[in-house]
């Protein structure tokens, strides 16, 4: 699903964010990216959603080399990736429901389906009462859950979550992780960048540790025991609807 081959990212004038990273993630896998602030976790996720282009190396998602992707194909690929941003990227003058709907509107999802999915996600994230609340009126923790709901709303094949539990208490963190695992069981691949040791400590999923842009710990290639019975995207859609 995701392949990085000798990827480096340098910002001008001479700041190395990622250095010679090779990594492979199978479809249906959960991978935790850990490391201190400035280790390169966010940059790695930005490379995978093509917000950034690598200075060197190849980044492939779903078999597509992102640096060679035509605009139309990149747009299509992005519709199959859900990203929960660290800075949330919520539109403050829009309601919670409208913020979540954006990810579905660009795929021309039917209004009734959008409403149903939004309500379901808000219920699962304990935000049902906030459906019509403006994003600017939410707490940080609530905003974080809305950005997670938006990432999940399009039933993506790949979810990139950047510090998804950074503003959440233990109970809500567990709720979010249960939701991620539910999506993963349906075949969605997850890459979670986190500081929060509690969410991967007892997990049997791969954990990669980054330091100063390089991988210093963890298996960069998946085990053979990876879930091969993942759902296809079509099955995901029909199941969700």
């Amino acid at each position, binding site marked *: 699903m995701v392949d990085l081959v000798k990827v480096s990212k340098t910002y001008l004038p001479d700041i190395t964010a990622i250095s010679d990273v090779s990594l492979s993630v199978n479809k249906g896998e959960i991978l935790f990216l850990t490391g201190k602030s400035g280790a390169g976790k966010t940059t790695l996720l930005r490379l995978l*959603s093509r*917000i950034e282009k690598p200075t060197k190396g190849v980044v492939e998602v779903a078999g597509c080399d992102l640096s060679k992707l035509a*605009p*139309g194909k*990149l*747009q*299509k*690929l*992005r*519709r*199959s*990736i859900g*990203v929960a941003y660290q800075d949330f*990227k919520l*539109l403050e*003058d829009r309601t919670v429901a409208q913020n979540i709907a*954006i*990810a579905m*509107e*660009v*795929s*021309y*999802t*039917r*209004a009734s389906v*959008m409403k149903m999915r939004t309500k379901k996600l808000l219920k699962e994230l304990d935000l049902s009462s906030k459906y019509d609340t403006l994003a600017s009126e939410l707490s940080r923790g609530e905003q974080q859950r809305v950005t997670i709901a*938006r990432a999940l709303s*399009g039933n993506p094949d790949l979810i990139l979550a950047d510090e998804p539990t950074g503003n959440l208490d233990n109970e809500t963190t567990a709720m979010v992780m249960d939701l991620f695992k539910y999506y993963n069981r349906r075949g969605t691949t997850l890459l979670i960048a986190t500081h929060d040791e509690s969410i991967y400590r007892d997990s049997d999923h791969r954990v990669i540790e980054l330091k100063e842009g390089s991988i210093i710990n963890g298996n960069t290639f998946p085990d053979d025991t990876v879930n091969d019975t993942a759902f296809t995207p079509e099955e995901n859609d029909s199941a969700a609807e």
Partner: protein
Amino acid sequence: MNFLFAVFSQTFRNLLQTWSAQLLTLLTITLSVLIFVFFYLIYTNVLHVGQQLDDDLRLIVYLDEEPSKEMQEEYRRKILKFDRVDKILFVSRSEAFQRFADQLGEDRDILSDMPDDFLPSSIEVYPFRTLDTLTKIKRFSDYLMTLPGVLKVQYGREWVERFYTFINLLRLIVILSGTLLILTTTFMVANTIRLTLLGRQEELELLRLVGASTNYIRMPFFLEGAIQGMVGSTLGLGALYLLYNWIKLHLAVSSLMLVFEFTFFPLPVVLIIIGISTLLCGSGSFSSTRKFLQL
């Protein structure tokens, strides 16, 4: 949710969110269209008047003698040598007398003591009714004076020249107001769209990140411009129609209005003006999104 529904709902949401800037643009478009169509309406009506008057546009060449058949051919040949004309009519002394008598109507008795050949024979030259004719008419008249046996050449020179100067001035005003219309509509719409784009940077970035297609992002802006153009031109034409009716009502007794029929644009012209304004504003916004949206 299909593409069109998504784009239309996005467009109306944008219009509502930026209604104050949109209103200002709409007002500018309405005024620009009103200025243009006001002068264009006067121009088309004056042109119509001009065509009515042009029917009388002719050069009358008075001759000292009644020309024979051969002389008539000779005159015809010499006139056509100068320029092509619509028609040439030879009026004999008796025909001139008859015409004069007809014009006098019931008062024709005053001619009873006059001989029927006291009026000179003449040649009536009807030039083609083009503006080009005007520039030549003086030279044409001078040329006709050089023909043998010509006593005098007559035409309404001063009036014709003034009339065509007025037409030319109106034409210039129409072209200038048309240019003003094109510049203001495209500039104002492009500027409004640019401001909208700047005000919605966050949303546009998010749309790109969630994989919105280029058309999904651009089409609402194009539609915004087109709607501005359509509504603005309709309001401008509507305002002109009200003004036109007011003028007709208040100047109905004016002698000018009695002589010349003052008409509004026919429906096809109205539709063409609305269509062109819609296209202009749509393309203005489209060029703005192309320039400022790096998709």
